[in-house]
C-alpha cells in the first residue's frame, strides 16, 4: 500500500459525506446503500465514522458526471476511467466522482427495482422465463400499453411475480417535481420534445418536463435508464430472442461465439442465420459498491497499491462476497489506527447454531460452482459451502463451510481439481489459485492465474479438471480452453483453443468439469444439466439432470 505525500489524512474521526446527484442506472435507494456499504468497508477497520448530510459542504462530496465535470480531470466515456477522488483536505479534498458514462450495477448485470405490479420494490430476476421464452432484460412482451416489465423470480409462469421497470412515463428522479412522471410532449425554450433530452444541460443527463410546458412551469426531473433490449448491433435496441440459431447451432443465452472481442451478443430474431439481426447483451457493468470503496480509500488518504489483490490496486476487477484485503487494512490502519473490538471478518457457525442448512441445494438449485474428485470422494461446491460423498448413489453430506475445511481459502471457489501424483487439491477463485495438501495451504500460495500462463485479462476460470487419459489439466473459460502440462509445469503451446472445435458436443460457459474415478467418463456441468463425455471417443453420450443424478434430490 502507499499513502499520499506527507501522509495526508483527516484530523478527525467523524467524516461527513453528501450525495450530490444520482446515476439513472439504479434505483436511488440502491445507490444510497452501495455508498453506505462502501464507507462501512473502512469504518469496520478504523475508528472512523461516516455521517451522511443532505445540505451544505460535506468532507466528502459525491457526484456522478461525464467528460469534463468541473474539476479539470475529465472522464473519458464508457470504460477506461471509471471514477476518481481527491485526497483528504479542505475544498475538493475527499471529493469522489463517478463517470456517468459507465453502467453502474452490482457488478453482475443490471439492477432493476420494480414499481407497482404485485412485487413493488423488489428487484428484477434476470434471466426470467415468460411464455417459454427467456428474458435478460425488461420487456414489453405481453402488454399493449408500452410499459416494460420483468419477473422478480426466475419463472414468471410459476410464480407470477412482476413489476414495472423504470421508465420516464412511470416516474423521474431528482429535479424539482417530486419524482412525477415525464409529460410528453413538453415544450422547452419554445421547442417540443416527445422524449427525454440532454438539451439545456452540460452534464449529459437526460431530463424531461413533468408538465406540458417547462418554460411556464419550470417543473422537471431526470429520466431513469431504459432497461430493455440490446445495445449496438443492428436491431435498434430490440430484445434478445431465445433460443436463437447461429451457424446452425441453438443458443439459449447470450454468447461470445463468433466474435474475436469476447463481447456477449444475441440474435434479436429466432434465427440469426436467416435474419442477421443482432445486438450486444447488457453487460455486467461496474460494481458501484466496489468502485466507491476504492475511491473512498483515496478520500481517506490511500494511494494506489502495487498489490494486485488489494482494493486500492488501480484496475477494476469484480469480487463477489468482498472482504477488505490485508494490504488495505494495513494501509488505512497505518493512518488512523485500528477500531477497537473489530468483528471477526468471516462469521463461522458456533456449535449452538446447529447445522448449516440455510443453503438447501435441492430446494434452491440453480447451478453448481465446482465439482471435483478429491481422493475417493466426490465434492460439490456452491457458494460458501461444499458437500461430499464416497458413494454417488447416496445424497452428498453437507453443507460444510469451505473455509472450515480449507482454512485460508476464499469463501467461494470457481473451480477445483486434484493434481495427479502430488495429491494436491487446486482451488481457483477469481484471478488466483490455491494449492492444498489435505487442509494445509502450501507455501507460496495463492498465486495469480498468470503464473499458469493464463492471460492477464481473465477474471476467473469457469472449470478445471485433470484428464486421466493424458494426465493433463484442462482449464475452461467462456468458449475457450487451455491445456496445462502438470509434469512439465507449463501450459502447452497453441492454447487457448475453442471448446466447440475440439470437445465434441460440449457447451461453452460450463460451470464445472470432473472425471469420475477414471471410469471412462468425464462430466460437464452447466446450469441444471450435465453432459457425460465418453473419454475414449470424446463424444457426449448422455445428458442428465444434476439434481436427480448427482445430488439425490
Amino acid at each position, binding site marked *: 500500500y502507499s499513502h499520499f505525500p506527507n501522509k495526508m489524512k483527516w484530523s478527525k474521526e467523524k467524516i461527513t459525506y453528501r450525495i450530490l446527484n444520482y446515476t439513472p442506472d439504479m434505483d436511488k435507494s440502491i445507490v444510497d446503500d452501495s455508498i453506505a456499504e462502501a464507507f462501512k468497508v473502512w469504518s469496520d477497520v478504523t475508528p472512523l465514522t461516516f455521517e451522511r448530510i443532505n445540505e451544505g459542504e460535506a468532507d466528502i462530496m459525491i457526484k456522478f458526471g461525464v467528460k469534463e465535470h468541473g474539476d479539470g480531470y475529465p472522464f473519458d466515456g464508457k470504460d477506461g476511467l471509471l471514477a476518481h477522488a481527491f485526497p483528504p483536505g479542505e475544498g475538493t479534498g475527499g471529493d469522489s466522482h463517478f463517470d456517468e458514462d459507465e453502467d453502474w450495477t452490482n457488478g453482475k448485470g443490471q439492477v432493476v427495482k420494480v414499481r407497482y405490479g404485485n412485487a413493488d420494490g423488489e428487484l428484477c430476476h434476470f434471466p426470467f422465463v415468460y411464455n417459454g421464452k427467456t428474458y435478460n432484460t425488461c420487456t414489453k412482451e405481453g402488454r399493449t400499453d408500452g410499459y416494460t416489465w420483468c419477473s422478480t423470480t426466475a419463472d414468471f409462469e410459476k410464480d407470477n411475480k412482476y413489476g414495472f421497470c423504470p421508465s420516464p412515463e412511470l416516474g423521474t428522479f431528482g429535479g424539482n417535481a417530486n419524482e412525477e412522471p415525464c409529460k410528453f410532449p413538453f415544450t422547452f425554450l419554445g421547442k417540443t420534445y416527445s422524449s427525454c433530452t440532454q438539451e439545456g444541460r452540460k452534464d449529459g443527463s437526460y431530463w424531461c418536463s413533468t408538465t406540458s410546458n417547462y418554460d411556464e412551469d419550470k417543473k422537471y426531473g431526470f429520466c431513469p435508464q431504459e432497461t430493455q433490449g440490446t445495445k449496438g448491433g443492428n436491431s435498434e435496441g430490440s430484445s434478445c430472442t431465445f433460443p436463437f440459431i447461429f451457424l446452425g447451432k441453438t443458443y439459449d443465452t447470450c454468447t461470445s461465439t*463468433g*466474435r474475436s*472481442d469476447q463481447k456477449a451478443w444475441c440474435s434479436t430474431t429466432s434465427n440469426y442465420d436467416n435474419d442477421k439481426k443482432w445486438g*450486444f447483451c447488457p453487460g455486467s457493468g461496474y460494481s458501484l459498491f466496489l468502485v466507491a470503496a476504492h475511491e473512498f480509500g483515496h478520500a481517506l488518504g490511500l494511494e494506489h497499491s*502495487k498489490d494486485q489483490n488489494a482494493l486500492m490496486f488501480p484496475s477494476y476487477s469484480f469480487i463477489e462476497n468482498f472482504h477488505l484485503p490485508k494490504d488495505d487494512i494495513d494501509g488505512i490502519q497505518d493512518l488512523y489506527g485500528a477500531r477497537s473490538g473489530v468483528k471477526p471478518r468471516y462469521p463461522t457457525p458456533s456449535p449452538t447454531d446447529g447445522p448449516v442448512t440455510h443453503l438447501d441445494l435441492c430446494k434452491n438449485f440453480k447451478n453448481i460452482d465446482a465439482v471435483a474428485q478429491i481422493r475417493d470422494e466426490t465434492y460439490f461446491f456452491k457458494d460458501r459451502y461444499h458437500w461430499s460423498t464416497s458413494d454417488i448413489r447416496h445424497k452428498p453430506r453437507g453443507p460444510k463451510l469451505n473455509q472450515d475445511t480449507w482454512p485460508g481459502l476464499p469463501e467461494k471457489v470457481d473451480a477445483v481439481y486434484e493434481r495427479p501424483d502430488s495429491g494436491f487439491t487446486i482451488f481457483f477463485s477469481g484471478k488466483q489459485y490455491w494449492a492444498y495438501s489435505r487442509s494445509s495451504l502450501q507455501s507460496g500460495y495463492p498465486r495469480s492465474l498468470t503464473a499458469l500462463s493464463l492471460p492477464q485479462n481473465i477474471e476467473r476460470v469457469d472449470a478445471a479438471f485433470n484428464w486421466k487419459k493424458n494426465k493433463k489439466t484442462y482449464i475452461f473459460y467462456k468458449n475457450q480452453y487451455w491445456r496445462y502440462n502438470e509434469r512439465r509445469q507449463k501450459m502447452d503451446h497453441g492454447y487457448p483453443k475453442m471448446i466447440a472445435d475440439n470437445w465434441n458436443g460440449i457447451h461453452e460457459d460450463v460451470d464445472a468439469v470432473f472425471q469420475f474415478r477414471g471410469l471412462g467418463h468425464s462430466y460437464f456441468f452447466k446450469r441444471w444439466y450435465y453432459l457425460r463425455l465418453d473419454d475414449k471417443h470424446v463424444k457426449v453420450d448422455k445428458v442428465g439432470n444434476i439434481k436427480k443424478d448427482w445430488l439425490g434430490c
Partner: protein
Amino acid sequence: APTVAAPTNYLEGESEPQNDVDFAKKFLMKVGYFKKQNDSGGLFNLKDAVRDMQSFYGLPVTGQLDSNTIIAMKKPRCGVPDVAA
C-alpha cells in the same frame, strides 16, 4: 471453426483502429508515469515510463509495449494517477 459470418460490428465509436504507441503515451501521461520522469529532471522517455508502469503492475519489466502491457493499460481503472502528483 464457427468464427465466420458472425456479427463483427462494434459499438459505435469503438471501431477505429488505435495505435498502441499513441494509446500508451496517453495512458502513461494520464496516470502519472511521464510526470514522474519530468519532475526528476529527466526527459520524457517512453521506454522508462513503460518500465515503471510494468513494475507497478507486476509485469515482466522489459520497457516493451507487449500485449500483456497493453492489456493492463486497457483495463478499466481509477482515474487517480499511480504516481504521486
